[in-house]
């Protein structure tokens, strides 16, 4: 493998900390709902408000999702992990501490493979731990005052920490995308980045190749892949500028401003909090028996990598197609359904990557919202295969199916007059006419000019008003020309 690309002679080193909101219905330590978008403070119960006398009770669904993730990245699922309190004061942190995991997290190690150009690169994971989210401070709309919305307080998060294995913003984005696809695939996170369900902190440093690691700065709360890339790119240039100016880099936490495209320091190491972590005495150690891990393993969906391999091996799909078919679990499920219905794996993949994806993207729809029933699409592919309709004709039928959210494929072919000529006698007559009327082309073909043959095919298609089956026309012409 080649060495990492350098920027102005510097190597970039990036590690990501990603907060994935777990898709449980209730919060991690209370029974309140995690639904997004409710009126402020309507989904905060006594526990979330930290009323005197309340205690946390762990949501096993959150643990189960952490186990699922751990298994998917081939990490160690810790048989014993510890919840700890991270103490700091902030108005949207009701208890004055966040319950998190510190010394012993539930998921330890593991890795995620990403595509870098034509190659695969393995990104090592340090850990993933369970914790609760804080509420939100609303600084607008309250005329000089701050509003506190505790609906989000206590929402379960899995914080996934990578090793500093990424060497460019592009790799960081690839990693974030792969991680996003995985957690959504596993059903542990809805992946909704606008709602903050998946957000990244990037630890960025630069160094001379082969030199010791530089001092890192942490860019907080990046909730889109584009911002992640922009923030890292800005940060790298800023750090190199400083080094080249002979200035030191100080460890700091910075925020990215999407409007200016710049990062700015939030706090430096000097005023970093002393969080006074200690084991939460309200929660006994989290014990995960091997049987629990096994049960989760059995219930897990096949992972995208394994499924893509299967599609290559069993369905004969090219690697690219197989990767496309496994871009998400619903996409893969749609492919499998279509493949089974039409028994044409490659055509099924072509249609999904082609017309289907094109229309979905154009209309900003998800594969789960596909208006064309899989059975209709399969029938259409069948009609292409048996020569009833050309590819062009099929596209028109597809548009009609899309518009009407389904329909009878044969009736649509008939109604639109797209049926190809299958009567050999009629086609033969057309071929004979074309041969008689194009003597020069026939001469040229016989003299060895292959191009002339294509002209004859074109004439046949034209004479049939496009309804001739090109393969059939080819065959007849060749036979007649001897």
């Amino acid at each position, binding site marked *: 493998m080649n060495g990492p690309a350098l920027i102005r002679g510097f190597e970039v080193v990036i590690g990501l900390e990603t907060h994935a909101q777990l898709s449980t219905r209730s919060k991690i330590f209370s029974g309140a709902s995690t639904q997004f978008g409710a009126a402020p403070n309507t989904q905060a119960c006594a526990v979330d408000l930290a009323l005197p*006398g*309340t*205690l946390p009770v762990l949501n096993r669904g959150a643990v189960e999702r952490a186990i699922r993730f751990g298994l998917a990245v081939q990490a160690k699922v810790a048989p014993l992990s510890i919840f700890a309190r991270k103490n700091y004061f902030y108005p949207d942190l*009701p208890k004055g501490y966040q319950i998190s995991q510190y010394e012993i997290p539930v998921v330890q190690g593991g890795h995620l493979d990403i595509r870098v150009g034509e190659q695969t690169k393995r990104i090592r994971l340090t850990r993933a731990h369970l914790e609760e989210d804080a509420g939100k401070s609303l600084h607008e709309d309250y005329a000089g005052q701050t509003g506190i919305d505790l609906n989000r307080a206590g929402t379960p998060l899995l914080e996934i920490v990578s090793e500093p294995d990424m060497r460019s913003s592009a790799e960081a984005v690839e990693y974030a995308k792969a991680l996003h696809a995985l957690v959504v695939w596993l059903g542990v996170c809805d992946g909704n980045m606008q709602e903050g369900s998946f957000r990244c902190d990037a630890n960025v440093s630069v160094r001379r190749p082969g030199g010791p690691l530089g001092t890192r700065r942490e860019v907080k709360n990046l909730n889109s892949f584009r911002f992640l890339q922009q923030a890292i790119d800005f940060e790298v240039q800023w750090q190199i500028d400083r080094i080249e100016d002979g200035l030191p880099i100080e460890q700091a936490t910075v925020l990215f401003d999407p409007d200016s495209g710049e990062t700015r320091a939030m706090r430096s190491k000097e005023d970093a909090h002393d969080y006074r972590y200690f084991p939460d005495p309200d929660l006994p150690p989290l014990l995960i028996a091997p049987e629990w891990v096994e049960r989760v393993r059995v219930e897990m969906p096949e992972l995208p990598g394994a499924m893509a391999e299967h599609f290559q091996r069993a369905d004969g799909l090219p690697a690219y197609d197989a990767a496309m078919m496994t871009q998400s679990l619903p996409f893969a499920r749609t492919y499998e359904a279509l493949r089974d219905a039409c028994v044409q794996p490659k055509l099924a993949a072509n249609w999904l990557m082609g017309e289907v994806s094109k229309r979905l993207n154009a209309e900003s729809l998800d594969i789960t919202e596909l208006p064309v029933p899989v059975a209709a699409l399969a029938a259409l592919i069948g009609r292409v295969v048996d020569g009833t309709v050309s590819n062009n004709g099929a596209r028109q039928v597809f548009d009609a199916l899309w518009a009407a959210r389904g329909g009878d494929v044969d009736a649509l072919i008939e109604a639109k007059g797209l049926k190809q000529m299958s009567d050999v006698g009629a086609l033969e007559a057309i071929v004979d006419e074309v041969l008689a009327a194009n003597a020069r082309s026939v001469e040229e073909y016989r003299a060895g000019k292959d191009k002339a043959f294509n002209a004859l095919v074109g004439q046949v298609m034209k004479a049939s008003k496009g309804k001739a089956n090109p393969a059939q026309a080819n065959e007849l012409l060749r036979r007649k020309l001897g």
Partner: protein
Amino acid sequence: MSAPLHELGVAGLARQLQLGQVSSVELVQHLLTCVANSEQLGAFLVTDPQHSLAQATAADARRARGPVPALTGVPIAHKDIFVTRGLPSTAGSKMLAGYASPFDATVVARLGEGEGEHAPGAGMVTLGKLNCDEFAMGSDNENSAFGPVRNPWDAQRVPGGSSGGSAAAVAARLVPAATGTDTGGSIRQPASFCGVTGIKPTYGVCSRYGMIAFASSLDQAGPLARSAEDCALLLSAMGGFDPRDSTSAERPAQDYHALMLRPREEATAAQPLRGLRVGLPREFFPDALSGDVEAAVRAALAELERLGATLVDVSLPRTELSIPVYYIIAPAEASSNLSRFDGVRYGHRAAEYRDLRHMYERSRAEGFGPEVKRRIMIGTYVLSHGYYDAYYLQAQKLRRMIADDFQACFQDCDLIAGPVAPTVAWRLGEKHEDPVQAYLADIFTLPASLAGLPGMSVPAGFGHGGLPVGLQLIGNYFEEGQLLHAAHALQLATDFHLHAPAGASGA
């Protein structure tokens, strides 16, 4: 004419109610009068006669309709560390003055109206809320923001703490029973100082849900009453697994009264405690132990012996270390538990402040008393970066060793016995100047707290100035039945627990 109503304990009142010789309403009216006449004691922080009488009326009506739980209609008062719906919950702190909880603590619900249709409560009537040291931090009840509690045996003396209001109210015959909480001795020591019976069960027996937290790994609720029998009845209603407290023990509910009554295999009529081995840790009888306390405790031990028990010498070598260990762990947890009192959502908020930080600082400076601040500072310090390993981690290691020491003792004995405190109740204000002197007086109650073991204080006689002395009994995990059995046997043979302070009750 039978004894006045306020002289009767829980079991006695339950019988009277069952026989229809008294109604809950009459009882509550009588006791509310006693409470009103005893304001100088400072035991009650709040009563709500309308609220209590409504509960009593409902209890009488239920009893009239058919069979009811035995304690239905018997009055009880709650330490103000338990949150209650309908009565303010303050934890003895200005920080929570007037705070109205939207829910009842599990212990309160179980003793009272229950936790819903499928979990009916014992049906006891809440008479009011009882004074305590602020956030249960203290051992003389002088740290309450709402004034001290006086010892019913001597108004110039403290009642002990932190459940000082509970012990004083029961001793003064204002209420037959009270709830308390014990973190480092806060049930046992005031029970000893006021001459009542109190039990701190094994950590995890009573739910902590709705108990305003001081030190989560130590806090445990328990009853204070006039006898071991009453405590057994109350503990049966209070205890048991609660899914809302992750540290609550997943064991079936226990009938402690039946366990208390169950005769020992080797028992005889004259010697009900035959075969019981009572361990006396030599560290519980140091030179510093006050002579009057030692004499009373030794006499009670002799009584146990007369009842058939065998006294054996044991050792708890880390008894002295339990003081620094406790005063690291408890403040560490407290410093974090009390962070929620920030003036943002409820509780005291300073009237004026410049910015957010200033609001926190002023609100907490104004809302917390000096002992609470002292412990928050100690706790914050020992958890700080660079100090954690030297203090908190070290203390946790020693805590485990202290628990192991007890297990070694229980190889040679069934129960451990000794004094509850080195002296009888001290004078009001006596330990104001030097809080460490008060900390040192916790030496005999802290070890069982750190180990999570059940401990009990049983009246054992009187010391200087006719002040009560308690005998401490410590059992192995979940051996509350054995503790209560021994205490009950002692109380059948002695009458220390029946003595009432002169002029008590206000009746």
